[in-house]
């Protein structure tokens, strides 16, 4: 190494022009690709909007409120799918929010030894790793028979309620909502737990020092302090539920009829696209692109809000 040092000294020189431009070029390459990540979002939006243009010109905003989807007559309205997307996501959140926040609280407190908790947190994360289509296949084989039986009970005893007014036929809004709930659970749990765990320990110590019980501390101090993080997690879960495709497609029954009953088959925007895109042509492609644009905008708003909320929370406590 010493001899190396010698030669380096004797050959001391400044960088050649080629080396400098190589260096500059490399920095520029990474800069372009870095900004390119943001540009991809724009390109996605522009591509989908451009391909949807014929349908936008043809149907305008009335597309959002039309309830017919008839490729033969070339009449397209997205209302049943928008309704299905919102209702199935709402069912998903009804299931996932209490379970996810409850799990998050349980795993952020010291009810169990730390190694056990770490393992359980990992297991909850694994729920998010199972491919969506596998949930769908499992849902057909296991979940639908169970929910059909529950649905028969609900329809038999509470059939006078509009939401249980039809006899269950197997696939429908309810099984789809349940599977979406299972799939959004890990996101809600992970983000709620993170925001609970990142609270400064002084909050807990002060509350306990004032004589509050553990659960009073959780409800009056910890959950309110982590509230916006939990809301951010719920919003991210909502975004995932709205865009989730395969499990919903396999379980929702793909009916374009509007029905108030959660036991009846329905459709979401994503499952409509999954079903029809491969065989579509002409104006139908544009109409499907239009629904895709609607879904993109819906999830974009939800996700941007969620990211903003979560980043505010991080900034507050870091």
């Amino acid at each position, binding site marked *: 190494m010493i001899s190396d040092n010698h030669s380096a000294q004797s050959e001391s020189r400044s960088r050649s022009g080629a080396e400098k431009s190589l260096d500059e070029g490399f920095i520029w390459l990474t800069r372009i690709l870095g900004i*390119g990540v943001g540009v991809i979002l724009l390109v996605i939006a522009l591509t989908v909007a451009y391909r949807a243009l014929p349908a936008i010109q043809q149907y305008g905003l009335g597309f959002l409120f039309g309830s017919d989807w008839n490729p033969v007559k070339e009449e397209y309205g997205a209302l049943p799918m928008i309704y299905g997307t919102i209702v199935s996501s709402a069912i998903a959140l009804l299931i996932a929010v209490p379970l996810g926040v409850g799990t998050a609280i349980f795993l952020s407190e010291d*009810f169990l030894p730390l190694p056990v908790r770490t393992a359980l947190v990992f297991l909850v994360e694994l729920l998010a790793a199972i491919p969506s289509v596998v949930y769908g296949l*499992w849902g057909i084989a296991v979940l639908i028979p169970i929910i059909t039986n529950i649905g028969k009970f609900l329809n038999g005893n509470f059939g006078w309620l509009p939401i249980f007014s039809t006899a269950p036929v197997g696939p429908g809004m309810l099984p789809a909502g349940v599977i979406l709930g299972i799939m959004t659970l890990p996101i809600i749990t992970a983000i709620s737990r993170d925001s609970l765990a990142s609270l400064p320990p002084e909050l807990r110590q002060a509350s306990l020092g004032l004589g509050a019980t553990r659960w009073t501390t959780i409800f009056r101090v910890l959950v309110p302090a982590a509230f916006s993080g939990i809301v951010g997690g719920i919003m991210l879960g909502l975004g995932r539920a709205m865009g989730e495709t*395969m499990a919903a497609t396999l379980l929702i029954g793909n009916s374009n009829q509007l029905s108030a009953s959660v036991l009846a088959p329905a459709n979401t925007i994503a499952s409509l696209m999954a079903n029809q895109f491969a065989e579509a042509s002409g104006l139908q492609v544009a109409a499907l692109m239009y629904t895709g644009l609607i879904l*993109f905008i819906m999830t974009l708003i939800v996700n941007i809000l969620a990211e903003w909320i979560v980043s505010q929370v991080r900034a507050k406590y870091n």
Partner: protein
Amino acid sequence: MSNSVSDENPFGSKTGSLKKVKNSPQALFGLAMTLLAGAALTISLLPLFAVLSYVTVQGFNRLNLDLFTKLPPAPGLSGGGIANAILGTLMTVGIASLIAVPFGVLAAVYLSEFSSGQIPRWVRFATNVLSGVPSIIAGVFAYGLFVVNMGGFSAIAGGAALAVLMLPTIVRTTDEALQIVPQDIRWASVGVGASNYQTVLQVVLPAAIPAILTGVTLAIARAAGETAPLIFTALNSPFWPAGFDQPTPTLSVLVYKFATVPFQAQKELAWAASLILVLMVLLTSILSRWATRQKVY
């Protein structure tokens, strides 16, 4: 509940004490809430074990050599395999990796090494938003850009859609991995006369390579399980893949197509393919978990 304190005399009047009262309303409320939260955890984990065990039971007895060497049977016939879909998944995921890995790693290099001001904040924000874009929208995008312009369904279009989904994961994990590399190493490299790209390519990236590989593996495993972006980009085919510009079968689309057919042989293949997908994702998740625990710095 060990902290439960009788609330009736908060400021220690004559009768007040710090004795725990086991059956006070507060203690019972605490116990009930603890049980509820524990129940929430149990119910949350139930689907994981239900799905894993059911897929294993249904798919395990079809895991044989035929599965990996033969084509799916014609409707009504038995036997066969899913070799064409395995090859197709390798093709689409391979294309996606070729696009997303260099793109994502270099974008993360920009974020962690060369950026300043407000731009990196926006790029990180865009990365997070991109990771929330529904997978089917990635498919719609690839359909609008590649299928329409190239005149047909192809493995390339499918790969491009998967690349969009892989990109945020790769950017995020690489960004995090690079930020953990100590600043001293960069100074040392620049100190011995290395230029920026030499520092990044020969010093910083190699130091972060285990964590980057972990992120990339995870992204690849997740992409292999994606179905929605492939149904109308790579489409499907009952035959061997005929080329990168032709409709290509994949494991995940095969599960979707065979999930609803009335034939027993196809259903068995769907379960076997599901088992392969689940095993792949689980193993990479566990491995990556194990790998990230072995910290270099």
